[in-house]
């Protein structure tokens, strides 16, 4: 075990002394991915029930999912809601972040906190509140209501991510652009936005996922023709436990990881940028 005595870094700490750190990191990583590692094999089981590890492998539950009108409708609902939420929350959040950054208002911090309250209030309260308001407004179980509620949840994320991106942006550049003949809006779109685009793309993906993954609020205010995938999954889990849920989960994991890979590919500035 000569490796244990070798220095692990410039500071003469040996790998032996770091061993506990390696083990801890390993355990945490396994812990983080374990649910995924269990769900994915379960989805390829031939059994009527959720079982791990599966005895016979099959894709029948995928066939069941893709063949079910009900599941397909829920999937369309979820994807539509997520896309609309992204399209609504991203511009709103970016505008808010930009406005707060550029105005240097003294009340800016207060407004910032107000805008991120949906993140701090327990989700169940947002859901109950939305439910009562929507009953009054008669937009319960509508796409409009769902997108509005999810936008409320996604907005803080967009705001925080974009604000962080703007922190490292030099606003003098926008002044330079304006002195060179660009209107304020033009300066924003040609100079500011291209430079914070990585934050904005990340924010948009997070907004999409916020809606796509969301279940608590959806339980209360989505339903009927506009029931989301997560809501139906929850109900299915309660009523009859069959591996369709595992296969849907696997597909959702694939979509989510795909988006994360996209975020890594496009969401990372080139060196020096």
């Amino acid at each position, binding site marked *: 075990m000569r490796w244990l005595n070798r220095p692990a870094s410039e500071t003469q700490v040996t790998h032996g002394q770091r061993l506990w750190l390696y083990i801890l990191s390993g355990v945490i990583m396994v812990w983080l991915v374990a649910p995924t590692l269990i769900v994915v094999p379960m989805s390829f089981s031939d059994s009527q029930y959720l079982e791990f590890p599966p005895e016979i492998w099959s894709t029948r539950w995928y066939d069941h999912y893709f063949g079910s009108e009900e599941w397909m409708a829920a999937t369309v609902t979820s994807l539509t809601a997520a896309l609309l939420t992204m399209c609504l929350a991203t511009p709103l959040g970016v505008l808010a972040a930009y406005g707060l950054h550029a105005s240097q208002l003294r009340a800016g911090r207060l407004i910032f906190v107000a805008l991120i309250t949906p993140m701090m209030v327990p989700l169940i309260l947002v859901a109950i509140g939305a439910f009562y308001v929507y009953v009054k407004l008669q937009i319960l179980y509508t796409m409009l209501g769902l997108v509005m509620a999810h936008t409320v949840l996604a907005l803080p994320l967009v705001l925080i991510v974009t604000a962080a991106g703007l922190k490292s942006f*030099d606003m003098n*550049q926008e002044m330079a652009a*304006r002195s*060179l*003949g*660009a209107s304020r809006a033009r300066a924003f779109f*040609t*100079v500011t936005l*291209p430079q914070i685009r990585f934050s904005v793309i990340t924010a948009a993906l997070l907004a999409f996922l916020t809606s796509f993954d969301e279940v608590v609020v959806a339980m209360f205010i989505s339903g009927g023709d506009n029931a989301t995938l997560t809501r139906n999954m929850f109900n299915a889990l309660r009523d009859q436990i069959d591996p369709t849920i595992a296969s849907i989960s696997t597909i959702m994991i694939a979509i989510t990881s795909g988006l994360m890979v996209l975020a890594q590919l496009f969401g990372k500035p080139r060196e*020096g940028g």
Partner: protein
Amino acid sequence: MTERPASALPITIRAMTKTYGRVHALDQVDLDIRSGEFLTLLGPSGSGKTTLLMVLAGFTRPDSGSLKFGDTEVIRMPPHRRDLGMVFQNYALFPHMTVAGNIAYPLRLRGIGRAEREARVVRALETVQLGGYGGRRIDQLSGGQRQRVALARAIVFEPRILLMDEPLSALDKKLRDRMQIELRHLHEQLGMTTVYVTHDQREALTMSDRIAVIDHGRLMQLGAPREIYDRPANRFVADFIGESAFLPVRRKGAEILCAGRPLATESPAPEGEKLLAILRPERLQLLDGSVPPEINAFPATVSELVYQGDSFLMAARLEDGTELTLRDVVRRDTFAELPGPGSAVTLGLHARDTVLIPDDGAGAAP
């Protein structure tokens, strides 16, 4: 001669006032900037010089006042309509564009076609001696090169007014000295009205046609560099530009008396009984023997002698306790012969270098 603008524009500033809380950043400033001149706004930090530049650019809205470019009132015009070039302290180049992209930006906004755009970018790059750098990324450039790109971007659309906010302050001294001369040449070549902000008096003296000295939001003096240096209007200007010691003198009838002896001057003394004589280190000389009538003599005691390579500094104390310094060139072998600390010497100041200002009781140097 590549980018001569159709014409330069004069700038007229009237009663410009801007307050931040109780602080007057600009206090009733009147200033006429001549068409095509290189005017420097000089002042310490917080003097209001940058505020004035930002008012010119349109980024700061003054509380009151009038601003005209030529005959056009522009006080309510947004920055992007003012059609002026501006160079920022930190250059504010766009890192997501190439050098050529940066310089083409104002041309693109003005809807200039691709072919002409490219030709003008090439010419602008040549003007700032960066020919062939168009394809570079901004982060591949040195500080001096970025400075030049910022300049090229500000002049490529041939604005009739060019504003510069301490553009050389981030460069090292040698590069700064060279850029000062280059900017000066460029101004002669392009001929646009240029307003330059700096806190560096030497930079102002080197580059400007005229200098506007600003303090506490007020215009302290406006004049050519030699005027400002040789004939400062008040203690602030005398103190801020160059080094100077102040010697209290009094008017008695037609004469100006310094410690009971009459003081020879060539320029008329300002109003008032209590005055100050300005003693600049490089205008003082060491006297030996006879004193010609056009020289004012001041008996003093040497307190310190400092060797500085090309020159020496002699600190001395007058009989009334006024501390002053004399600077002269070190010529071969002469340094060793200079009187050392404790020696009695006579310092001379030529009558034409004897400048009087009112003693406004502003107190000691800041």
